[in-house]
């Protein structure tokens, strides 16, 4: 008999003031339907709140969604706050309307994967599944 797969836990957060949560909610449900346990933070959270919740929930990954364009400021702050809480190993994925130049810059700042408009839900779920903790 195949070894039972460990259930993965992810946190989907919306930092900043953007209230467009259709994408975040659809992804949360799609991940649930792919067998993830998903913690959803709701809209209008600070990066620090998101990082703190991710630590308490001991998630395997954090997914951030932001459409307002404030990603360059807010995504790296989530990574920073995770580090400050001794959880720099929890990988962070970001999605939004993100120009290519910013994608590179975000990756340099520790965002593991960045999704731009037009990415299928399947690709995103796969990315969460394949993620390994930092340094593993």
């Amino acid at each position: 008999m195949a070894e039972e797969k460990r259930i993965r836990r992810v946190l989907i957060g919306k930092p900043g003031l953007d209230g467009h949560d259709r994408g975040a909610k659809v992804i949360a449900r799609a991940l649930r339907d792919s067998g993830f346990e998903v913690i959803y933070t709701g809209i209008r959270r600070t990066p620090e709140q998101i990082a703190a919740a991710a630590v308490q929930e001991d998630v395997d990954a954090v997914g951030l969604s932001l459409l307002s364009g404030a990603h360059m400021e807010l995504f790296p702050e989530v990574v920073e706050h995770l580090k400050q809480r001794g959880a720099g190993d929890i990988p962070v994925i970001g999605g939004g309307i993100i120009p290519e130049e910013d994608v590179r810059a975000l990756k340099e700042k520790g965002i593991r994967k960045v999704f731009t408009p037009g990415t299928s839900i399947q690709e995103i779920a796969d990315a969460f599944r394949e993620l390994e903790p930092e340094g593993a």
Partner: protein
Amino acid sequence: MDIEAVISGIGERNSRAIARAISLVEEGNPGAERVLSSLDPPSVEKAMVAGITGAPGAGKSTLTDKLISHCRGLGKRVGVIGVDPSSPLTGGAIHGDRVRMMQHALDEEVVIRSMATRGRLGGLCASAGAAARIMAASGCDPVIIETVGVGQSEMDIIRIADVTALVSAPGLGDDIQALKAGLLEVADLMVVNKADKPGADMLSMELKEAVGDREGRVLETVASKGEGIAELFRAITDVFGKNVNSGERDRRRCEARRAEVVDWSLEMLRPHLQRMAQGEEVLSGDPRNRARAIVQSLLPPEDR
């Protein structure tokens, strides 16, 4: 984070350590046993575990959120375990209640953890019980377990709570008969939330009638406005205090621990049983007789 760091981190109230400890238990990691045997017994003994249950839409998470604020006002460190059902098809779950408690995210004295039922009937009870003890060992008192009041797994949760409050609200189409048949009997307190809505008085009356005249078992709250929260918390601690003195708390805990032992044992046996159930005879004999043979082989001779 290694096991030693987890163990020392719990006592130091380190969020990451507490969270990792709960995960080790949930995942059935062998390290969990060392963690659990390290928990400080007096802290675990003293902490009150309160169960908040009720139908979807009754306002449980708002109520829990306000209870957290109230306890923080009293200077208490609070643990919260939010339980949501896992999808039977995919095993996944969505924990959306956290949305209502985000205002406490930066408060280091509030430990919140979402747990899914993971399709294990009794197994969740075991994991949640361990999670509550880990939180208690880190200084949380009370520990609040919030769960949707429908189905077997929720009934199991109630077993591990020292005090249980059943939340209902007017306009949900709650059938009082259904409540009566199940949770009403095991709940210590009945909360009519959204008490400012039409139909609340009626619901209170019906509940009071249903539970008999025991004074103070039915309470009214308007969680969204924070009304009735202090009274509710006082009622919870009163029940707890009374039960401590009467020995009822210990009796309940004994029963819950015994059930947990059985749950854990079955969980631990499961892989062995699965291995033993392999083999070609599966189609020849009746499954029930096969099971009997397997169990017999596991029992000491005098119990066979």
